């Protein structure tokens, strides 16, 4: 599908490499998809801001040549909202892991969605706290093992996409680090959407998650992503039993033309001025 070789060097801060990610980690695939997507959208590097929280995925901004802010755990969206509201012309992207976005940052996640602010949130969803050694995350499947659920998790996980949609996000999609080409396409779509867009990317942490859940190698985890992913259209004809243990992929929700927070704010300012 990718016809010419893409020059990633244009966007990488090569002096900050090598990255911290383990060999075989899915985060690199997502990073490369993001760079191709940003390139396709044609943004100037000066106009792109990437904020992130804390965790493996959140180290991404350090490696890419934009305006990058590696913030505090869970709070990346709050910084994103601040800079977006002050300089609405900037394209603001937030990178977050599942623990970062949905546990410690859950409040900011739902409120950013509620406001429908023009920010793209990419959740690197590997079902675990990889950086701290594989503790249970809010997306970890019931029954799976982690360093803090040695007898199997009994907590129902969040569905990132359902939560985003319910909270008011106007573009919601899911892909995996296996579906690199689809991932790029969805990222372009999410970035072009005006409003809060959430892309849930299922990715692999074979070291902290897979190793404890019968998927020791990246290959097994990538296979898991391939096999468990159900395109949204196919899922329509499947029973809940068929879907158990699997996840839907695709653009799951899209609503164009909804009032966007930043635009509405500045429209309001204009109306105050004219009074």
């Amino acid at each position: 599908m990718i016809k010419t070789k893409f020059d990633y060097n244009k966007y990488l801060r090569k002096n900050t490499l090598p990255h911290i990610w383990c060999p075989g980690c899915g985060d690199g695939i997502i990073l490369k998809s993001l760079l191709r997507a940003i390139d396709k959208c044609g943004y100037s590097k000066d106009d792109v801001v990437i904020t992130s929280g804390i965790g493996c995925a959140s180290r991404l901004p350090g490696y890419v040549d934009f305006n990058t802010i590696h913030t505090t755990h869970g709070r990346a969206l709050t910084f994103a909202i601040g800079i977006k509201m002050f300089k609405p012309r900037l394209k603001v992207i937030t990178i977050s892991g599942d623990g970062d976005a949905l546990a410690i940052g859950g409040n900011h996640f739902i409120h950013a969605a509620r406001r429908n602010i023009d920010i793209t949130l990419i959740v690197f969803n590997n079902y675990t706290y990889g950086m701290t050694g594989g503790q249970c995350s809010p997306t970890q499947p019931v029954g799976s093992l982690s360093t803090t659920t040695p007898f199997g998790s009994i907590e129902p996980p969040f569905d990132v996409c359902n939560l985003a949609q319910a909270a008011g996000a106007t573009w919601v999609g899911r892909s995996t680090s296996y579906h690199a080409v689809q991932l790029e396409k969805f990222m372009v779509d999410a970035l072009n959407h005006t409003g809060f867009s959430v892309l849930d990317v299922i990715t692999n942490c074979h070291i902290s998650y897979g190793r404890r859940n019968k998927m020791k190698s990246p290959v097994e985890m990538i296979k898991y992503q391939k096999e468990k992913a159900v395109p949204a259209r196919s899922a329509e004809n499947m029973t809940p039993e068929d879907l158990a243990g699997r996840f839907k992929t695709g653009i799951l929700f899209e609503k164009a033309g909804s009032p966007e927070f930043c635009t509405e704010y500045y429209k309001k300012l204009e109306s105050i001025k004219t009074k």
Partner: protein
Amino acid sequence: MAKNIKLMQGNEAIAEGAVIAGCDFFAGYPITPSSEVAEILSSKLPKIGKVFLQMEDEIAALGAVLGAALGGAKALTATSGPGMSLKQEHIGYASMCEIPCVIINVMRGGPSTGLPTLPAQGDVMQAKWGTHGDHAIIAITPSSVNESLYETIRAFNLAVKYRTPVLILTDEIIGHMREKVVIPDKSDIEIIDVKLPGVPPEKYNPYNYTSGEVTPLAPMGEGYRYHVTGLIHGETGFPSQKTDVIQNAQNWLMDKIYKNIKDIEKFEEFQTEDADILLVAYGSTSRSSRQAIMMARSAGIKAGMFRPITIWPFPDEQISALSKKIKKILVPEMNMGQVIFEVQRNACGSSVYGLNVVNGEPITPDQIYEKIKEISKI
């Protein structure tokens, strides 16, 4: 020219001062007794094309402030009590990443929910030590409504100049009291604005630990692409675990404040020249102290006062000098004893006494006068 005089509440004066200072951005969360700052700015800022945001929580409020500040905004948040506890992590982030911002803490009784509508001065040590790790901080304690306005302007200036969070600690008394305020002419006050760095983007490093100069923070989105992280970072902004970089970064966070203390310090002395008893008092307590000093002097007891306006960094030098000639020092505070330890640390052989009232009421001049009388007999 006739002065522009208004009757204002302390919290209102802070909002007014912020607008005069060029505040571009406010994000906050409702909390008593600071809410008026947000309420007033929710009307004032939109009218002048600036941003007001009510965020989902206290942490988000300071996060948004820091995001905007990285975009070049002069940004402000205001809170009290539990809200200040929640903000600590981002105060550390602002210190570490050297992001200018102003944080108002209208102090109320604590700990925990404490006394939401009653005054206290229990957050002075929190202002310095609340966030984890070593860092220097600037904190200011105005004692009147008028001073709240001018010190807010100074806080914005210091924040931009030293790329640091600046805290203003008022209390419920100052915040809710109404007093005369002289609104300054813009030509009469200094305003330090956010500037682009003097070097082109390819030569820009967001940090400088060695030259002694504070590097201007380039507003993001203006061609200066750089990285910001709460990890210890080198002058390029990228994380580092090299021992010399770590030490330099830590030293710099202290040095940039302490080596510029002459520019940051501010205090007032009241009848200290011939004093036998020195009061060290700040914020609303300094007002009762002033009255008590006059009562004492009428009774023939020579008392005087040193009033820190900048409370952090602490005026070590001044306290030390005064304690060489005044051998009895009284520190009245609406807490169980906080600033008294700083005074003791600097007292050269003087006896230091505390007057600690934390019952939700201001410390009265009578209470202080009684204590002065007691000390005078020792």
